[in-house]
C-alpha cells in the first residue's frame, strides 16, 4: 500500500528540466519526432495535392459548373469544354479491360493457389510480377506495332462477320480505338488481379478445403463453392484495384485510342480517355481556361480513383485480416 502511494507520488512529480534534457540527449524523443515529421510529410503531400488540383482548376469549375461533366462539346478554340466523351471513353475501355482480365486473372490465380505445386506456383508468380513491372510505354509500343495490325486484319473483320449484328462490332476496322485500348489495358491489369487474388485464396484456411472434400465434393467443387466464396472480398478488392489502374492508365491507351472525342456504341470506333487527353493537350493548351479544364479532368480522375481505391483497400484489409486470425 505504501509502495503504491510512493509510486503515485512519484508519478505526479513534474519532470525536472535536466531530466527532460537528458532524455532528449538520449535521443528517443528526438528520433520519434524526426521520423514523425517525415511520416507527416505524406499527409502534407496528400493535402497539397488536393488543394493544388482544386486551386488550379478553379476557372473551369466556375465557368461550367456541373455541366462540365454532362456536356459533350470539347472545342478549345471556341472555349467550350465538356468532359462527357472522355468519361465515356475511360469507362468503356476500363469495362472491356475488366471483362477480359477478371476471368483470366481469377482462373490463373485459382491455378496458382489451388492446383500448381508450390515450386511451379512460385516460379510463375515471379514471372507474373515481372509483367507488372514492365513500363506502360512499352505496352504502348507493342500495342501500336503488334496488337493494332492484328486487330485491323484478322480479328475485327472476323468479329464483324460473326457478331456484326451486335451494335458493338460494327463500322470500319481501323485497328486503333476502344477495343485496342481495352485489350492492352486487360493485359496490363491482369498481373494485379492475379497476385492479390492469389494471396486472398492462399489465406483461406485449409480446414475449409478439407471439410468440403470430406463431405464428398470434388476438388473443383471445393474450390468454386467453398474457397472462392470465402476469399470473395479479397478478389473483389483486387478487381477494384485493377479498375483504378485501368482508369488512370495513360501512355498505352493514348497510343492506341485514336484521339477522337466522341460517344459511339461500336468498339471498333476511335475514342478518347481522360488521361489521354491530358497527355496530348496539356503542353499545347491554347489558354488558361483550356489548362484549367484539363486540370479539372485530372481532378475528376483523382477523385474517382481515390474512391475506388479506398473501397478496395478496405476489402483487401478485411479478408487478409480474417485469414490471419483463423490460421
Amino acid at each position, binding site marked *: 500500500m505504501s509502495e503504491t502511494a510512493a509510486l503515485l507520488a512519484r508519478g505526479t512529480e513534474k519532470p525536472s528540466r535536466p531530466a527532460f534534457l537528458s532524455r532528449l540527449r538520449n*535521443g*528517443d524523443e*528526438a*528520433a520519434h519526432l*524526426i*521520423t*514523425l515529421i*517525415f*511520416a*507527416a*510529410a*505524406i499527409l502534407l*503531400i496528400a493535402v497539397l*495535392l488536393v488543394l*493544388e*488540383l482544386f486551386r488550379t482548376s478553379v476557372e473551369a469549375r466556375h465557368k461550367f459548373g456541373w455541366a462540365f461533366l454532362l456536356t459533350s462539346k470539347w472545342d478549345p478554340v471556341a472555349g467550350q469544354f465538356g468532359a462527357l466523351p472522355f468519361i465515356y471513353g475511360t469507362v468503356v475501355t476500363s469495362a472491356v479491360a475488366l471483362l477480359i482480365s477478371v*476471368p*483470366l486473372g481469377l*482462373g*490463373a490465380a485459382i*491455378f*496458382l493457389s489451388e492446383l*500448381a505445386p508450390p515450386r511451379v506456383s512460385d516460379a*510463375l508468380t515471379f514471372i507474373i*510480377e*515481372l509483367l507488372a*513491372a*514492365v*513500363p*506502360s*510505354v*512499352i*505496352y*504502348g*509500343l*507493342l500495342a*501500336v*506495332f*503488334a496488337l493494332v495490325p492484328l486487330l485491323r486484319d484478322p480479328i475485327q473483320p472476323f468479329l464483324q462477320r460473326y457478331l456484326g449484328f451486335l451494335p458493338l462490332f460494327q463500322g470500319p476496322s481501323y485497328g486503333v480505338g476502344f477495343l485496342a485500348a481495352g485489350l492492352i489495358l486487360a493485359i496490363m491489369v*491482369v*498481373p494485379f488481379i492475379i497476385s492479390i487474388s492469389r494471396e486472398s485464396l492462399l489465406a483461406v484456411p485449409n480446414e475449409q478445403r478439407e471439410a468440403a472434400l470430406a463431405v464428398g465434393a*470434388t476438388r*473443383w*467443387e471445393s474450390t468454386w463453392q467453398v474457397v472462392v466464396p470465402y476469399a470473395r472480398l479479397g478478389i473483389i478488392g483486387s478487381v477494384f484495384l485493377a479498375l483504378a489502374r485501368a*482508369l*488512370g492508365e*495513360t*501512355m498505352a491507351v493514348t*497510343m492506341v485510342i485514336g484521339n477522337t472525342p466522341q460517344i459511339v456504341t461500336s468498339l471498333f470506333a476511335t475514342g478518347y480517355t481522360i*488521361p489521354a487527353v491530358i*497527355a496530348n493537350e*496539356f*503542353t499545347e493548351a491554347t489558354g488558361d481556361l483550356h489548362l484549367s479544364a484539363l486540370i479539372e479532368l*485530372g481532378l475528376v*480522375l*483523382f477523385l474517382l*480513383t*481515390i474512391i475506388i*481505391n*479506398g473501397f478496395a483497400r478496405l476489402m483487401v484489409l478485411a479478408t487478409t485480416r480474417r485469414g490471419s486470425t483463423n490460421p
Partner: protein
Amino acid sequence: MTLHRWRNFINAVMFGLTAACALAVVCVLFWILGFLLWNGGKSLNWAFFTQLPKPPGEMGGGMANAILGSAQIVCIASLMGIPIGFLGGIYLAEFGMGTFPFLVRYTADLLNGVPSIVMGLFAYAIVVRPMHQFSALAGGVALSVILIPTTIRTTEQFLRAVPQTLREGALALGANKWKAIATVVVPAAVRGVATGMILGIARIAGESAPLLFTSFGNQYWSRSLGQPTASLPVMIFTYAISPYDDWHREAWAAGLVLLAVMLLLNISARLVLSPGAPRN
C-alpha cells in the same frame, strides 16, 4: 455418363481451363520479350548510347541525352523520395500505434493508387508554374511523389518482419530505443528495405506520363537541372507515335534498353538481394 463421372469430368475441365489462363498470362511476358528483342535488337547499336537524336530522314543518331536525362531525373527523385520514405517507414514500424499512424498508412496506400499523370499535374502546379519553365527538377518532384508512398510502406513492412526478440535483446543490453533501431533493427532488415527501394526506383524509371509536362523533352543536351530534359520513356512515346520509320526503329531500340534495365533491376532485387521476400 453417371453423375460421379460427370463431376470428375467437370473437375478436370475447369482445372484445365485455369491452367490455360495461367499459361496465357505467362506467355505474354515471353511475347513482349521476343518482340522487343527481335525489333529492338535489329536497330540497337553503339551510336544509340553515344549520339544525340537526328532529325527524321537523317540516318543514325541515338538517345544519349535521354539516357543521361532519365538518370538525372531518377536521381533527383530518389534523393528526395528515399529519405522521406525511409524515415517515415521507421516511424510507422517502430513508433506507429494509434490513429495518426493509421491515417499515414491509409494515405500512403491511397496515394499509391493515384494515377501517375495526376502526380504530373501536381508537380506542374507546384514547380513548373512558379518557375515558368519545364525542368528536370519538376520531373524529379513528380517521380518522388510517386516513390514516397511505396518506399514508406515497404520499409515499414520489412522492419516489422524483424523479430521482436531482437529489439528486446538490444534494449536489455542497455541501448535506448533509437540505438536499438539504428544498430539492430535496420541492419537486420537492410536487404529487404534495399529491395523495396530498388523496386520503387525501377518503377519510377519507367514512368512517362508524369514527365510529359514536367521535364518535357529536348533534342539536345540540357545545360542545367532547370532546363527541359529528355527522358527515355518520353522519347519512346514521341518516337513511337511519329510517322517516321527510322524514328520507329529508334523507339524499339529504346524500348529494349528500358525493358532490359527494368528486368535487370527487378530480377537482381528479388533474387539476389532478398530471395523469397514479400512484395510491395
